[in-house]
């Protein structure tokens, strides 16, 4: 509670101060206040998550119930994530905003920034429907203003509208979930709804209706299939620091909504509903990563990758709900851990990458990968931080992405215990898609890092890039560090997330797990015998903490290793290995002279800049392979000739349309239009025809009323 109040007062103070202090202080004051506010948010969240939650009544709405805010575990988790993103973004902003200074009034930026932070916090903390919806609307408007901050650019304004429109459409759809909940529980209070759902059995159709409305409604905000096309439009428009928040926090709001309704307030009882979520998640992930692999605009590419990550989170959530509905709490728990872990990870590395994109934009003025290159030499700090982010998002150890993706795949592979074969098949397919996604993500981010930071500069802008200042460096560095920490200490993170996951899974099962390898505690004897020969207890006296992530013991007689990995010790081993190889190289190379020479280029001394691989070239094989989805990516070629035989130009135009637009929205629009066309045929514009219509209607009404009320 103190943390939350501190946060509120700091944010409000920041808004006031922005208009009080002299102009050149505005952003710096906002940065300081913002970082303290974010820290307060993290503090508040941690306290409520681990120790005791609080609640606060705001208003008593006659006949409806109390308006209240509070911080149980689930919101607390999201609040921590929000704070962890806002904190570095606050450090990052002042320098980044400098370039907007001449054209925009930054005091409004401060206002929007803090209003957005408060609205987001409030949305998470709302404990009743009315507060939630109010906060949600404020958040929507604030985020629209944020995306549209550089409103002098036409395209940005459009992107802002698209986002606002999508957000409102989703909002209306979620009402379809809230209203039945309010109706059955006769209350707007979350706890009352939860209690009601636990007490009664409701018809299956109602469950489906709530689930569909909430999932697809909040899915708009989370960027899930089929409503994700606003996302890649909004991101390039927003300033980079807002992009970080958009990806790192606002998408989470959608996920939060889905979990809150389907996992807490109205837990899913029907495995099929969970399966639908898994399927939608898989489709989202695949589409997201395919477009991310082929997109060459840095921010748009990151936006597509956010879609992919939201898909992964959704898969894990769907798995949680399915396992829970199938009464497999252990597996549900593991999938839940995976989902929460992935949410945390994605917020961190994606905001890191967006901040990096901001630094690159500020340093070069360009975000097209085809034109960037060689920035590792000019922007070493940004490059190092981005490397960490890229490794994390490509799920490479020792960074955090590896663990959550590994957990997701593992939990999907456990589908063998599910009863109907169809469920198994769906899980297996999602597993395949997640694996494919991971592979494509690695390709996509190798492209990102390779094209932007390595090789020669492909344009004057990238040749003359300048490194970011201290604020952004700290911001990116701390996020990179967090990614690393979360990657090497999963045993602690998992233990921390366990209570919340247990809540979602419908039962705590941390005890049902085999104690970690290498832990100071001994293994149970039976397990010690099984795993001893594998080195299970090696060094358990020496090493400080638990190293292994999971073992799952099946209920059967023999201990059954489901999956096990020890990222902490893997990281240690990697470190040792690297150090040893370095030493070995030093020894071997001691007497060798190193001669440096330009790379071999077929005998030509220096090739022109356009003789180097581009991002387009790198992703071309993916375009070719996934032609079916990325279609119509087909190039249209025009050739121009001089003197009838000499080519003077071969122009290639690539026309593409987003697969979702093509398959969902354009057909829908066509249907609507054709219906309108049919209706339009009735409008002949002749007065006697209209009179005839009127007469027919009158007759119809009279006969109907005679028939109904004889």
């Amino acid at each position: 509670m103190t943390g939350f109040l501190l946060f509120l007062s700091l944010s409000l103070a920041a808004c006031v101060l922005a208009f009080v202090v002299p102009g050149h202080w505005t952003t710096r004051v906002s940065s300081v206040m913002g970082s303290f506010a974010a820290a307060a948010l993290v503090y508040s969240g941690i306290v409520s998550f681990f120790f005791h939650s609080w609640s606060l009544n705001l208003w008593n709405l006659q006949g409806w119930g109390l308006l209240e805010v509070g911080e149980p575990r689930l919101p607390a988790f999201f609040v921590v994530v929000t704070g962890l993103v806002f904190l570095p973004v606050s450090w990052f902003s002042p320098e980044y905003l400098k370039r907007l200074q001449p054209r925009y009034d930054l005091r409004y930026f401060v206002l929007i920034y803090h209003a957005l932070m408060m609205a987001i916090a409030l949305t998470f903390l709302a404990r009743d429907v009315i507060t939630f919806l109010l906060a949600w609307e404020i958040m929507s408007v604030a985020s629209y203003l944020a995306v549209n901050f550089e409103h002098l650019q036409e395209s940005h304004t459009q992107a802002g509208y698209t986002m606002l429109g999508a957000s409102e459409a989703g909002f209306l759809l979620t009402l379809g979930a809230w209203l039945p909940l309010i109706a059955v529980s006769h209350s707007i209070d979350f706890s009352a709804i939860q209690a009601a759902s636990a007490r009664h059995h409701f018809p299956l159709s109602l469950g489906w209706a709530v689930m569909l409305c909430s999932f697809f409604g909040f899915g708009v905000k989370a960027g899930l299939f089929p409503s994700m096309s606003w996302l890649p439009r909004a991101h390039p428009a927003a300033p980079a620091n807002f992009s970080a928040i958009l990806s790192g926090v606002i998408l989470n709001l959608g996920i939060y909504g889905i979990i809150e309704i389907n996992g807490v307030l109205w837990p899913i009882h029907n495995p099929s509903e969970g399966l639908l979520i898994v399927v939608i998640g898989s489709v989202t992930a695949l589409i997201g990563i395919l477009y991310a692999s082929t997109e060459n605009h840095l921010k748009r590419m990151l936006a597509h990758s956010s879609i992919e990550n939201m898909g992964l989170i959704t898969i894990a959530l769907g798995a949680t709900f399915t396992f829970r509905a199938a009464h497999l709490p252990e597996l549900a728990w593991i999938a839940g851990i995976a989902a929460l872990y992935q949410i945390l990870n994605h917020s961190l590395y994606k905001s890191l990458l967006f901040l990096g994109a901001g630094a690159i934009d500020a340093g070069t003025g360009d975000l097209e990968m085809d034109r960037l290159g060689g920035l590792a030499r000019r922007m070493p700090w940004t490059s190092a931080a981005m490397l960490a982010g890229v490794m994390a998002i490509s799920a490479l150890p020792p960074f955090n992405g590896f663990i959550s993706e590994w957990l997701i795949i593992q939990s999907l592979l456990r589908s063998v215990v599910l009863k109907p074969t169809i469920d198994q098949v769906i899980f297996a397919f999602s597993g395949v898609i997640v694996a494919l996604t991971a592979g494509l993500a690695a390709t996509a981010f190798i492209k990102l890092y390779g094209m932007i930071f390595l090789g020669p500069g492909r344009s004057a802008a990238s040749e003359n890039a300048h490194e970011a200042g201290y604020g952004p460096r700290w911001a990116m560095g701390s996020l990179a560090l967090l990614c690393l920490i979360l990657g090497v200490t999963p045993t602690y993170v998992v233990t921390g997330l366990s209570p919340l996951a247990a809540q979602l899974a419908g039962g705590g099962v941390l005890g049902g797990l085999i104690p970690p390898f290498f832990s100071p505690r001994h293994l149970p004897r039976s397990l010690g015998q099984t795993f001893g020969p594998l080195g299970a207890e090696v060094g358990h006296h020496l090493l400080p903490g638990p190293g292994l992530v999971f073992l799952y013991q099946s209920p059967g007689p023999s201990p059954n290793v489901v999956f096990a990995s020890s990222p902490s010790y893997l990281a240690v081993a990697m470190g040792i290995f690297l150090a040893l190889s370095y030493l070995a190289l030093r020894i071997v190379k001691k007497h060798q002279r190193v001669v440096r020479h330009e790379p071999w280029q077929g005998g030509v001394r220096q090739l022109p800049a356009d003789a180097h691989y581009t991002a387009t070239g790198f992703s071309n094989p993916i375009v070719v392979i996934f032609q079916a989805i990325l279609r119509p990516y087909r190039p249209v070629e025009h050739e121009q000739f001089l003197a009838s035989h000499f080519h003077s130009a071969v122009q290639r135009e690539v026309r593409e349309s987003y697969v979702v637009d093509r398959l969902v929205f354009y057909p829908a629009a066509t249907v609507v239009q054709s219906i309108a066309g049919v209706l339009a045929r009735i409008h002949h514009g002749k007065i006697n025809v209209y009179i005839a219509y009127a007469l027919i209607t009158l007759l119809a009404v009279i006969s109907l009323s005679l028939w109904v009320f004889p």
Partner: protein
Amino acid sequence: MLWFRKGLDQPVRTLTPKTSSTLHGLSPGRPAPTPSRDAAPEDVCPTHALKEHDGVMDVDYTQCIQCRLCRQQSLKNKMNWEEGFHWAQMTSTSLPDAFHHSVHVRVVDAGDCGACLNELHQLASPVYSLHRLGIAFTPAPREADVLVVTGPVTVSMKETLEEAFQSMPTPKRVMAVGTCALSGGIFSSSFAVAGPVDRVIPVDIAIPGCPPPPLALLDGFRLIMGARPENPLDGRVRK
């Protein structure tokens, strides 16, 4: 797989010291120093390879293009002809021990007519099968120990040749193959030829001939590898 089996069905084609007892067609031979009174006159030679010396008509092999004009039927006196293929000459003082077991070779065509290159290519055929002797062609000079240069170095190839040489790691050696590479041969007076290889990069092994037959090339490779057996096809001989 199918071809693998078909390949096994074929007889072994590889020349060995035993099977190659006759040089019939393996080497064209070359003019040998001949007592002047029996020798063809100096001016027969299109590349001025014949020089009289103390009563002996000497042949400058870096110039001789084996045109056989000095032994044509219409001449009264002809040059003697020697069979054989031990033509490789070491022109540098030392060859590193590092090459004793295996060498990697990058071939640079600096204006070759195609025949020298084809003889090098022929080395990889089963008949000569140079891989069994520890010699391999590499695609880039970066991995090469030996740079083989063929052809008179043309003006346009000069820098490229320098670049290839500079790109090689040390220790490195250069082998000039063919009369063109040694002196420019018949192209030496062309304005588009920058000169023999040693005017551009240092040459360690010179193999004359136009083109030198594969056996002469192998002889050169064996020389680089520190062994010069009686027959370069003999894989076992070590220094």
